[in-house]
């Protein structure tokens, strides 16, 4: 199965459930770290053309901070913790009590790096337990740059098969509200197209809806 825009609603719901489990676990870890109630709302599981994905996070030139992890193993794909500047500032303030300007201090950047690392790590652990696969994450890497530059790179592998990706997205909220008015934080799971079949197979729903 590929990242087919015609993937059934049933299969999209299955992916939503996976995201609930992964993002829920990530939220719990962050909650422990912050000592505050953190929730992860699964805002979207849908096929999106590449150029729409950049619009979705605020436009190709919007500055974002991203922690990127490549997953190999039972399934393969990319995971991204994406956070816009105002949300990152709020998160750093929650963690350190310090206010950051748009340049970000070394300290501020390492907070985001660590938060991304922990959230992606716990997401992957939950995913691995749920699917029963061993998943090997790469070393997490942080970048602050234009959304277009970061996302297009993250979509390279998927680009081999088409111009659309199934975006599995969770949005972060702390103490019942988004981090900033913009609501600019996401945890994206971008499985390689071949991995969808493997996921559905593992859950015994690969042939759901076939005649």
């Amino acid at each position: 199965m590929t990242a087919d825009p015609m993937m059934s609603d049933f299969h999209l719901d299955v992916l939503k459930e996976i995201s609930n489990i992964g993002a829920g676990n990530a939220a719990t870890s962050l909650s422990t770290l912050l000592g505050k109630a953190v929730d992860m709302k699964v805002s979207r599981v849908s096929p999106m053309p590449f150029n729409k994905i950049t619009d979705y996070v605020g436009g190709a030139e919007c500055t974002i901070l991203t922690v990127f992890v490549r997953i190999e193993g039972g399934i393969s794909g990319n995971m991204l913790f994406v956070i816009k500047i105002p949300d990152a500032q709020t998160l750093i303030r929650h963690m350190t009590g310090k206010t950051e300007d748009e340049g970000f201090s070394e300290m501020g950047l390492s907070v985001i790096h660590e938060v991304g690392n922990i959230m992606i790590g716990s997401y992957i652990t939950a995913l691995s337990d749920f699917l029963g696969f061993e998943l090997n994450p790469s070393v997490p890497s942080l970048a602050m740059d234009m959304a277009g530059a970061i996302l297009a790179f993250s979509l390279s592998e998927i680009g081999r098969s088409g111009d659309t990706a199934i975006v599995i997205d969770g949005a972060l909220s702390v103490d019942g509200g988004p981090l900033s008015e913009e609501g600019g934080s996401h945890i994206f799971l971008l499985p390689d197209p071949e991995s969808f079949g493997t996921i559905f197979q593992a859950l015994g729903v690969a042939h759901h809806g076939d005649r």
Partner: protein
Amino acid sequence: MATVRVGIAESGVVLNPNSISTLGLGSCVGVTLYDERRKIGGMVHVMLPSTELAKGENFNRSKFADSAVPDLLNQMIKSGADQRRLVAKLAGGAQMFNLGNGTDPLLKIGARNVEACKKALAALKITIVAEDTGGSWGRTVELFCETGLLEVRAIGRTKTHI
């Protein structure tokens, strides 16, 4: 003056007095062709180096260097450009993340994209007159048909014209 926007794995050709741009090139490469006498400019946003990487028969030719560059040349010729006068400029091909050794070669895609675009241009005997490639940062580029200058913008860096 109007600006034509080129998205990921898309291409376009514009005439004077217009410009053509693409936003947020990371590991992708923006290839531009320019005919100085007729002031025709073209751009393609290349995402991957080779059609050999494509899975399936029906792929978007503007995505892969080896099909995107010849296709852009054809578009330029159709718009009245003369192949012998065309010069190329390149921007992008950055490595956005540092993921250590032993990872998938696809993660070093930026450098491979640049190399493949150069190879495709060489095969068509088109000279590269300027480039701003590599590094670890994203770039937005805009080609002005009036002058043939390529403006390169990046976060926290001075805007340049190459």
